[in-house]
């Protein structure tokens, strides 16, 4: 998922961007008062850069496509043999040993399809997207010298981390939002407003579905930011963006494996992916928020750890 072409041009442009705030301000050497680069402009530039990368667009396109493929495939299968295909979706929740995944009933509804897709993609592809963005943010720019511009520019390391974090946050939000929106639109096209039913058997209004999906996107963003913070910590410690992606995905896979071992159940509350099953609670009516709140809290803990390590690594980094 690497692109070779625009690297050099990008590196130069990033340097130009980093220096840009000084161009219309007084050059730092010339004045005893160092003008701080306006944060808004830095953020805009960062976000523009992220979304100009072909790999970002490629993975986002894939994220849009997958709910559509799932919906259409399940729809076709359901037409073929009613109620027979139990393994319609690629698994509703990790380790769902007991019942069939939530895909079985109303699998293509505008409610279950976006949530189910989000849950499935949160296992690997969405973390991959975020890890990729975080890897590019620090390690990637370091690897072709673009970070040097940042480090020399009148931007404090804390602000640099802030800009990079917001960049990752935007990616997380856009990615989660795209998955849900794509699922929602596909669901509406396939089933209209049919099948907007909670697991408790209540029919939901379109408004009821929309706020639940909004909560799902917000929650997924927090979860992905926890992944992103850890990725930024790795990213600040290396100059190989590949290492960031491998580290994050490896960590997630190891966590999931550990979650399968009942003897380690004392460890499970410490593992980030154990929050994922709580998204199912959004399909219940009334929604029980206990699991979601706990999952969000766990994610914030990871966020604090990740960002503090990233900050420590960044402040001690030489230009």
């Amino acid at each position, binding site marked *: 998922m690497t692109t070779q072409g625009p690297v050099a041009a990008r590196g130069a442009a990033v340097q130009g961007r980093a220096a840009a705030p000084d161009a219309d301000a007084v050059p730092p050497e010339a004045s005893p008062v160092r003008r701080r680069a306006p944060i808004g402009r830095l953020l805009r530039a960062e976000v523009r850069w992220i979304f100009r990368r072909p790999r970002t667009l490629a993975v986002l396109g894939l994220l849009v496509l997958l709910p559509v493929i799932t919906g259409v495939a399940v729809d076709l299968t359901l037409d073929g043999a009613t109620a027979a295909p139990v393994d319609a979706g690629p698994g509703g929740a990790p380790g769902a040993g*007991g019942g*069939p995944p939530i895909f079985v009933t109303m699998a293509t509804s505008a409610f279950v399809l976006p949530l189910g897709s989000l849950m499935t993609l949160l296992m690997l592809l969405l973390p991959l997207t975020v890890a990729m963005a975080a890897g590019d943010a620090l390690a990637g720019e370091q690897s072709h010298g673009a970070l040097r511009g940042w480090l020399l520019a009148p931007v404090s390391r804390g602000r640099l981390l802030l800009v990079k974090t917001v960049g990752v946050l935007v990616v997380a939000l856009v990615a989660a939002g795209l998955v849900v929106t794509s699922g929602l639109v596909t669901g509406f096209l396939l089933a209209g407003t*049919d099948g907007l039913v909670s697991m408790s058997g209540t029919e939901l209004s379109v408004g009821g579905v929309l706020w639940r999906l909004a909560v799902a996107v917000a929650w997924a963003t927090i979860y992905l930011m926890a992944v992103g913070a850890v990725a930024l910590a790795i990213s600040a410690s290396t100059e190989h963006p590949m290492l960031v992606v491998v580290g994050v995905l490896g960590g997630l896979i190891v966590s999931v494996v550990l979650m399968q071992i009942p003897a380690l159940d004392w460890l499970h509350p410490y593992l980030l992916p154990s929050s994922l099953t709580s998204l199912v609670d959004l399909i*219940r009516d009334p929604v029980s928020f*206990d699991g979601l709140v706990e999952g969000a809290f*766990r994610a*914030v803990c990871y966020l604090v750890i990740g960002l503090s390590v990233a900050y420590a690594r960044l402040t*001690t980094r030489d230009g």
Partner: protein
Amino acid sequence: MGPRTKALVAAGAGITVGIAGLALSTLPAGADDDPVLPAIGAEELVTSALAARAPAFSGVAEMQNELGLPAVPGTEALDFESVRVFHDGEESARVQVEREASELTFVKGSDEAWAYDSREHSAKRFTWDEADAAAARGHAEAELADPSEAAAEIIERLRPTSDIAVDGTARVADRAAYELVLTPKPTEKTLLREITIAVDEETRVPLRFDVFANGRSEPVLSLGFVEFEVGAQDADLFEFTPPEGAEVETTEADDAVGSARDAKGRDDVGQYASTVGEGWDTVVIGEAPDDLPTEAAVEDGQDLGGILAQVGQPVTGEFGTGTHVQVAVGGAVVTDDGRIAAGAVPRQVLVDALDTDGAVQQ
């Protein structure tokens, strides 16, 4: 402070805070000391608990099941981890049994009750003319899942055959409660040691029950609230309209009354099951469902008969022949003609129960 020290402090503080937060969320809630409550007599507590009317409340209960029971029809309601309960303080209640990716929802109103299973996308409707006990029996599964109802049922059923005592106090779902202990009378032929029931001091609603078996210090079955909040509930919670496309099946309570107690000593508790005996040595007898292969049927290379032969021992009696399987708190006999008898009792009691049941049926 140099940048290096600053970095170390930042990293150290962040990691500490983060890990402390993670550890915090693993701590069990409500590990407080037992509350001090005015002394109360066992009889008074039992009477007040049985007379207690549940206030309007919402609660979350969790279940711990170490029974190792074989799949007896009618015990599917025991296959869950957590359940949410809503009461309006009058006749209406809502019980949601949460499974990993599906849910069983029971909604009981003043003149009808619904059971919805999201796995099947099917709804069952129970109606009755008068809100009597037979109607309540129709959705016994719902009561099993609600700790307050289930514990009250236990007290009522086991009261005549138990020695009852109050054994201190406990804190359940952050509420002060009395611990009621039911011990089987010496004449009872059971493998259970005792059942403890925590009764809320303020409302007298049972909040938790634990079932203990002989020779085990940990409870084999525990169902209790982890959250319990008294307060008015939204009226919408107690109304149910089956969603479009759901399979709806209606049962009149009158039919249920007709078929229940159709014969002396044989008391219908569900579609498949009947009970023999009373109190601690009650034996539940059920028909193995049709889709369950009973006789040497091969499914996925597994032979149910072969498995039974491996884990169980053959038994014979007037009822015919079968296989006895021993589990933590009791046992079950699967007969060769596809009936299952289970209870917290020794093997001979199961065999006797099957004989009795066979005699009643003829």
